[in-house]
């Protein structure tokens, strides 16, 4: 990050003047934290005692045998408290909020994972908490809404725009400019105005730090390739940072291919040709937008990847060809999810499954002496309504109908 918050041509901080001071303070607090080894130690300690870091690196023996190529290792962010890598970021920001002396946090959420994580962190740290969530996402991720509320958070369905993640972000900013003094905005991914992309990536780098040590311990050397799904880009940045300085390790980010890159119904910003440079939501990156700069509706079976923008850090790595970007379609995702559950007893989140899709396409062509790592950013339990729906499970449908009858009485 340069002094203006840029990574190469991307990033910056395009914020209303009213937030200027808040960002100045945030940058100072963040810089202080980043310089202070005690802060990182406190962060690691809380992640070890409250969540279950280090998360394991699981050797997927059956899938490896099935594909007959490189050894497949899975980094298990799904085992975090609240079920996804989002826990890393929120606990880190929570500590920072404590140091800044603020008492209220707000967050946007798409899949609901970041919302649940933030609500959880707020309960743990004793902060007030409001979560903004697009109305469409509220519908597809109701269980997460339920848990956020139970954890004491207020969840506000956002009814503007496409009623998904980007609109929740706008609405969160509107709250923030109103309540700057008391409130910190816990941005959920490696996007948004500086210093968020770098700060979120820093907290998530714990994934890569662990993974690097673990793969060397298990496999004796670095992996050939590392795969991560890319919504905003935080889990990808998290694991990639463990290997960015290694020429020999190829890094692959997998975006939501939705109904296919040609269909217009996807959320692929860096692979494909539908995105163009733009500035929105406080930062400059590749956006899915029309010629006039109006953001487009995106589509993905996974709410967490269904987003118009992407981390400016990843845009820079993309431009510099340090990370390759691919996409996985909704159909591929469902098929791969099925295979992974049956072969390894592991349920990746729909988001994470995107990374599995691309890994499975490539792993047969690699040598058995090599290893790959797939970052399993979260667990699929949260997606039961989406997954059971997508699989058209008849007993699930019956079950829902029967439950509804009870409630309609």
């Amino acid at each position, binding site marked *: 990050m340069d002094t203006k918050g840029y990574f190469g041509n991307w990033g910056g901080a395009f914020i209303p003047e009213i937030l200027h001071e808040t960002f100045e303070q945030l940058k100072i607090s963040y810089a202080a934290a980043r310089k202070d080894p005690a802060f990182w130690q406190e962060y690691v300690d809380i992640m070890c005692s409250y969540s279950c870091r280090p998360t394991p690196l699981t050797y997927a023996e059956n899938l490896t045998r099935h594909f007959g190529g490189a050894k497949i290792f899975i980094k298990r962010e799904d085992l975090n408290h609240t079920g996804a890598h989002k826990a890393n970021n929120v606990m880190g920001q929570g500590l920072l909020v404590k140091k800044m002396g603020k008492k209220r946090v707000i967050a946007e959420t798409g899949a609901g994972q970041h919302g649940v994580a933030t609500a959880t962190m707020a309960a743990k740290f004793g902060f007030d908490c409001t979560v903004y969530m697009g109305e469409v996402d509220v519908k597809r991720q109701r269980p997460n809404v339920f848990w956020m509320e139970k954890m004491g958070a207020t969840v506000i369905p956002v009814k503007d725009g496409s009623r998904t993640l980007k609109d929740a972000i706008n609405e969160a900013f509107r709250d923030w400019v109103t309540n700057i003094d008391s409130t910190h905005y816990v941005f959920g991914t490696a996007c948004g105005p500086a210093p968020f992309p770098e700060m979120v990536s820093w907290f998530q780098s714990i994934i890569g730090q662990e993974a690097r040590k673990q793969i060397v311990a298990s496999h004796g050397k670095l992996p050939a390739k590392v795969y991560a799904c890319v919504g905003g880009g935080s889990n990808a940045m998290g694991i990639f940072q463990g290997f960015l300085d290694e020429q020999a390790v190829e890094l692959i980010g997998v975006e939501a291919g939705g109904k296919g890159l040609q269909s217009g119904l996807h959320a692929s910003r860096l692979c494909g040709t539908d995105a163009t440079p733009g500035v929105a939501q406080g930062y400059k990156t590749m956006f899915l937008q029309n010629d*006039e700069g109006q953001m487009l509706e995106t589509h993905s079976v996974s709410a967490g990847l269904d987003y118009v923008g992407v981390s400016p850090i990843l845009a820079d790595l993309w431009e510099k060809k340090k990370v390759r970007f691919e996409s996985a379609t909704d159909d591929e995702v469902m098929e791969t999810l099925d295979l992974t559950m049956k072969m390894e007893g592991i349920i990746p989140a729909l988001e994470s499954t995107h990374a599995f899709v691309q890994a499975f396409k490539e792993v047969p062509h690699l040598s058995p002496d090599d290893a790959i790592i797939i970052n399993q950013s979260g667990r699929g339990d949260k997606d039961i309504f989406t997954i059971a729906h997508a699989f058209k499970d008849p007993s699930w449908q019956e079950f829902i109908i029967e439950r509804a009858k009870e409630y309609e009485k």
Partner: protein
Amino acid sequence: MQLEETLRHKRQEKDILLMTHIVLGYPSFETNRKVVSQMVENGVDCIEMQIPFSEPMADGPVILKANQDSLAFGTTVKECMAFGAEMAATHNIPFLFMTYYNIIYKYGEERFFKDCRAAKIQGLIVPDLSPEMGENFFTLATTYQVAPILIYAPTSTDKRMETLNNFADGFIYCVARRGVTGKKSSFDQDFDSYLARCTSATSLPIAVGFGIQDAEDVACLKGKADIAVIGSQTIRLVDEKGPEAVGPFIASLR
């Protein structure tokens, strides 16, 4: 320089100036036209015309909805530019564009300034663009003589105001309070001392906006600011009572 001069000039004749806000293409350009006429006829001194954007991060519900509806009706930046030119040619007050940076960025910054210049648009308000992020923008503003209007907020330090003042032109837009557009503000002691800080940080005229809704609010600002900005209130009025209600409302303000 032209905008500042025009405003100073008008200010000598009135104890406070009025600036109003419309969202282009909402509910239609036809209505925009009527509303602007009513405003000008009833003494508005300057009008900011918002080019709609799909992500109006700093706007409250009224303007947000207007942005989205306008886009849904198919409003384009080109139409907005043409409409701006038409207004500037028709009415003898300064017209400004307000929009978010992406609209300008995608249009092409230089092309945007060139077209504004040609359309006789006198100033630009871009709430998500600071001098730090807009180096090229501010250079072009000088080149094309379109005033970059900057914003002071209650959270701005004296030092920050000074920095902003170095880049600003036309006037300074002082945001009355924290928050987004469209909600009522209260003009208490804190507000007064904030405004005093604003005034002493710049020699440009001072506009105050956010939540100014009636004659009482405007009266409060007399002697303290040069321009009162009426934002969401006229949009609400048009929504509820049609464009004809705008004239009497404006007339009642001062």
